[in-house]
């Protein structure tokens, strides 16, 4: 079947099998490998992308279901060569070691900060509670999101 969707602002069209999962469409059809493919069971959250402005686990959405919708992946966080504050926060606060969970963590963090620009630690932990990191133990991830909350100025390019 033919699907058409907007990915990071660009319209893309592909011929796919209806059973193709969105995460594989993004990685294999579009070559956007920033989105990671982890547990396959909607538990780990490394595959989180935005669908129509909300984070979703792309291992549990069919590409066919995204037909006609807007998808935003981690590649779209950076704007005009500048890092999103969330990305900068992950760098400055050492929010990653292996980096496998990072794209999903950052997409959820960006969504949280857009809705709640000054979240406390409990709110951040709740927001990422469906995402698993096996390296840092979450402390630095929470600090990274707090860093982004405290340095919002550079995110003005965000629509």
């Amino acid at each position, binding site marked *: 079947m033919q699907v058409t969707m907007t990915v990071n602002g660009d319209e893309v069209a592909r011929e796919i099998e*209806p059973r193709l*999962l969105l995460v594989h469409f993004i990685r294999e059809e579009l070559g956007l490998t920033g989105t990671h493919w982890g547990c396959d069971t909607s538990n780990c959250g490394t595959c989180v992308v935005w669908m129509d402005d*909300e984070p*979703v686990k792309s291992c*549990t*959405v*069919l590409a066919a279901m995204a037909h006609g919708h807007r998808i935003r992946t981690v590649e779209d966080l950076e704007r005009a060569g500048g890092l999103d504050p969330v990305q900068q926060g992950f760098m400055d606060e050492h929010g990653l070691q292996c980096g496998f969970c990072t794209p999903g963590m950052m997409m*959820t963090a960006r969504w949280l900060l857009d809705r709640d620009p000054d979240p406390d630690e409990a709110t951040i932990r709740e*927001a990422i509670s*469906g995402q698993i990191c096996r390296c840092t133990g979450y402390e630095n991830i929470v600090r990274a999101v707090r860093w982004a909350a405290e340095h919002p100025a550079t995110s003005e390019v965000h629509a």
Partner: protein
Amino acid sequence: MQTPAPVEYERAASVDDAIALLERHGPEARLIAGGHSLLPMMKLRLARPDVLIDINDLAEELAYVRIDGDDLCIGAMTRHRELLESPVAGEHYRILHDAERVIADPVVRNRGTVGGSICQADPSEDLSAVFATLGARAVIRSSSGTRVVAMDDFHLGAYTTAVGPAEILLEVRVPIRTGCGSAYEKVERRAGDWAVVAVGALVCLDGDRITDAGVGLAAVGAEHFRSPAAEEILRGAEPSEATFDAAAVAASADCDPQSDQRGPADYKRHLAGELTRRALRRATARARGQEG
């Protein structure tokens, strides 16, 4: 790599269109809403529909939480997050927010739907126990019309509901009562997991007398997700610790938990009693207008 088996895909444009597609494709067609129950089942080949009928475009028709007459109505396509954030839901039944806060995780709640959850009818499903607690009714449509079924008649067993192969759940209707409080208590092994055991309670008070009560149980094999014996003890009684104890004993006897990776049966039976006690205390405090 987990991938669903080959499947055809159709997209419904309206409720009537969804029903027409179900009739055209027969009993091996399945509606898909959020997909967070069905797609994992398809990956494991526990479900293997020939055709998926995507009803996400029906959100405009079927995603709402509103008052209609004497009922709080929750549309089948309401996402978990929408119910969690609905002020009118929390105003009437705090149990809805208690439960939604512990259903899956925030990202899954963006996608999963109320209708999808209760139609999946997993024995551990939280909203099934919540709606059983509240004495809700389900509104189901087919090409021959709309019918309304009580929750006891909706839940036919594990993964089985009254919704027929060419039918669609439209909404859940919860009768609005005054002088009531409700609460949901869940024990889970980790954030976002299925319940080890969960219990919902509804307490309606007239002074120092319980006029009506509901006790719902998830993950312990309670028939229709409910404990009629506990409810019977509560009705007409004084809302005291002694009453709650008696109801807790009844609820823990009124179920059939199985030992599995979430715990041994006797532990689950113990939890069913203890969570009944806690849920009743909290529901009673709320019925009295006290925070809890």
